[in-house]
């Protein structure tokens, strides 16, 4: 029940295309869903996050879509650029207690020029 399942494991997209990464969770107590971006040799960095009281959040070319009833959320990268090539992790946590995050297994995105 604590798992967050992420897919696909890897993704290749042409420059200008849309990249879509999906995550699913089981624990309905989760109330914070961030996405992290990691470049080679660096630590993960917060990209965008959503709470379950909204169905979508957009920041620039990055959008989180959230489906509470299906217990799924996804990251959409519009107009994908070679600079977006990185590993993306979804996560889920509960906003109480120790705030521990449960991470997905990651998606390696490559955007072709």
């Amino acid at each position, binding site marked *: 029940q604590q798992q967050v399942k*992420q897919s696909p*494991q890897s993704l290749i997209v042409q420059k200008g295309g849309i990249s879509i990464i999906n995550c699913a969770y089981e624990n309905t107590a989760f109330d*914070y869903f*961030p996405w*992290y971006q990691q470049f080679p*040799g*660096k*630590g*993960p*960095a*917060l990209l965008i*996050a959503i709470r379950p009281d909204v169905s979508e959040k957009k920041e620039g070319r990055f959008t989180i879509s959230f489906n509470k009833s299906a217990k799924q959320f996804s990251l959409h990268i519009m107009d994908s650029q070679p600079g977006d090539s990185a590993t993306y*992790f979804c*996560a889920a*946590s509960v*906003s109480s207690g*120790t*705030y*521990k*995050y449960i*991470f*997905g*297994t*990651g998606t390696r995105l490559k955007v072709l020029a």
Partner: protein
Amino acid sequence: DAGITQSPRHKVTETGTPVTLRCHQTENHRYMYWYRQDPGHGLRLIHYSYGVKDTDKGEVSDGYSVSRSKTEDFLLTLESATSSQTSVYFCAIQPGDSGANVLTFGAGSRLTVL
């Protein structure tokens, strides 16, 4: 990686030797975490701390111990390193205030156990 420093950044050691990784923060955040990152497994929690001398186990804590004697420092110790502990280790910090969930990671420590 502002406000959080990991050391060493790279280490090669031999099976059976003790290893200590250090995480230092200047943000005065309450929560500190140690994760390991392995291909196909993502980020897995080893141990975490919710205050000075207050620590608890994560999902992959076997073979690891931690200590936090000061707010700013969180140490991860491998008492007797094994090849299965070859990994990239990340420290993370978190404010702990209500609604302030943001987890900030360090740059990582790459450990190779021969």
